[in-house]
């Protein structure tokens, strides 16, 4: 067996593909900027009770619609609530809805897409026609309809945004599954006696998980905007709990108080942008062809 030693590759610690991707992500400037913004947004939301200067629902009748000042850094809204505090607390709700909705879409879409892709045939046809049908609705109208039926609250907003995003995930996962299914290692797994669910989740899923995560980051951006739109239209979480979209919709009635609209708008803009940057960063980090 001495000759085999020549076959051994250089002695180093085995590095998982995830480790390699993380290494490359660290060199992606835009990805890092996105990650930084995202972490600031998340930290602000999570630590809102600690860092918010006021109770977001506390009303100061003495300073209604006051512009940014040293007392109220970002000003106050139409009934004298501190905008900065509301922005921080609003982030909690907005980000929670985005996280929940994307999780729902990712899990449901992946299971549906894998099932359709692996089983193929009639089942694939039926599933994908249903998904196409759902995609045919304008996303916002569809979400509105779901919230209107279920009632406007945090969980339902999450479900609605999750459901409208599911077909896109299903389509992505199915497409990738169709190509991975034809790879020899899937046939090898079948030859080892692996069951259909095992092939779906153990053998095919890891190969497309990376792409799905990237897609999730990119969809998070549109989910945040959908959430804001729902809230803007008054079908998100009910007041007085603040969300960014809701704050934006209030601003519409007070065009003279620019700060009510600008700050939530910027929060939505930067957070959405950060999701996009992070998604791009992950995609580029995983794109380098390391799997032969």
């Amino acid at each position, binding site marked *: *067996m001495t*000759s*085999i*030693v020549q*076959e*051994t*590759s250089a002695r180093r610690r*085995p590095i*998982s*593909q995830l480790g390699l991707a993380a290494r490359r992500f660290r060199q992606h400037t835009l990805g890092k900027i996105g990650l930084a913004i995202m972490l600031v947004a998340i930290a602000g939301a999570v630590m809102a009770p600690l860092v918010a200067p006021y109770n977001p629902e506390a009303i100061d009748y003495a300073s209604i619609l006051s512009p940014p000042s040293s007392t109220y850094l970002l000003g106050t809204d139409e009934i004298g609530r501190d905008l900065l505090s509301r922005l921080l607390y609003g982030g909690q709700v907005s980000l929670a809805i985005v996280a929940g909705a994307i999780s729902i879409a990712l899990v449901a879409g992946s299971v549906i897409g894998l099932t359709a892709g692996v089983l193929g*045939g009639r089942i694939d046809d039926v599933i994908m026609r249903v998904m196409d049908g759902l995609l045919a609705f304008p996303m916002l109208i569809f979400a509105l309809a779901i919230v209107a039926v279920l009632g406007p609250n945090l969980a339902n907003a999450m479900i609605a945004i999750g459901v409208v995003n599911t077909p896109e995930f299903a389509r992505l996962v199915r497409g990738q599954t169709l190509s991975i299914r034809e*790879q*020899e*290692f899937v*046939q*090898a*797994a*079948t*030859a*080892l*006696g*692996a*069951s259909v669910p*095992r092939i779906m989740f*153990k*053998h095919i899923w*890891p*190969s497309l*998980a990376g792409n799905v995560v990237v897609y999730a980051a990119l969809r998070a951006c549109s989910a945040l905007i959908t959430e804001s739109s729902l809230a803007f239209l008054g079908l998100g979480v009910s007041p007085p709990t603040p969300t960014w979209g809701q704050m934006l919709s209030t601003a519409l009635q007070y065009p003279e108080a620019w700060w009510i609209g600008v700050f939530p708008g910027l929060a939505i803009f930067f957070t959405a942008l950060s999701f996009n940057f992070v998604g791009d960063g992950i995609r580029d980090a995983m794109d380098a062809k*390391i*799997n*032969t």
Partner: protein
Amino acid sequence: MTFQTGNVLEVENLSVYFGRLPGSLPVVREVSFTAVGGQTLAVVGESGSGKSVTGLALLSLLNRGLSKVTGSGNFYPGSGPPVDLLHLDTRKMRALRGDRVAMIFQEPMTSLNPSLTLGYQVGEALRIHRGASRRQARAEAIEMLERVGIPDAPRRADSYPHEISGGMRQRVMIASAMISRPTLLIADEPTTALDVTIQAQILDELKKLQEEMGMSMIFITHDLGVVAEIAHAVLVMYAGQVVEQGPVRRVLERPRHPYTRALLASVPRLDRPKTTLAAIAGRIPDPQQPIAGCRFHPRCPYCVRGLCDVREPELDDIDGIQSVRCVRWPELEAA
């Protein structure tokens, strides 16, 4: 461990049709053979002769919607009654695959999952069939990796396929197929993608494991050098048919069929001074193109008009151990 000496697999009249159209012609036509415990049967033929399809059909790995398989394939799993591999429901087939019957594929570069560790992939059969825990499977996988000659196996078990060479990957494939000590191993050109030195090592490894475990092996290849190295019996296929079969020495030393002769003549040899290699003119026929008479006659140098292109030859038994599908074999033998 089951150490079988008798017949492990008896295939009779295996035919494979692609496409569900009623008029479609078979890609594999009425192939019969027997695999014996502890021995290796080589299935030889050009690309397109139907040898891989035969292997895939035995494990029901052909797309069910696009193909039809007929015939029977009685498999003796060591204990219990024989089962017909060609008429097995999905669940029972799944229980056999990777447990009693294992398969190795041609491309070690693509047959391993790039996102799973080697240890996981080798131990997987035990997790599927024996209900082994993650830890047990890993321990046995490491042991198996050592047996197929992977140095530093405990560390390699945590490596990914992209970190090791092609030869090593094929060893890993072998380990994953052999870990459940199958009764029958179907090896579909396992050495074709490897360079010659590694090829010899892999063949030795397979022979060693076969001796230790007493399994029967069906070795699909187009390489007659490999056949001489590893096989006990040979089945020569042409255009989906068996054209010659017999013990390896007989077939290689006294080939009766013109196709087998031509195949042997096309192998480069050091003991015969010759400047150019003999090639077989033409190419393998399209299975959907009906051919009258012998399927090899358009390419056969011994073809006689009015005989070979009219009557389809039977597989003639020569002397109880070798058979050939050629109407002219006695004449050619005499010549």
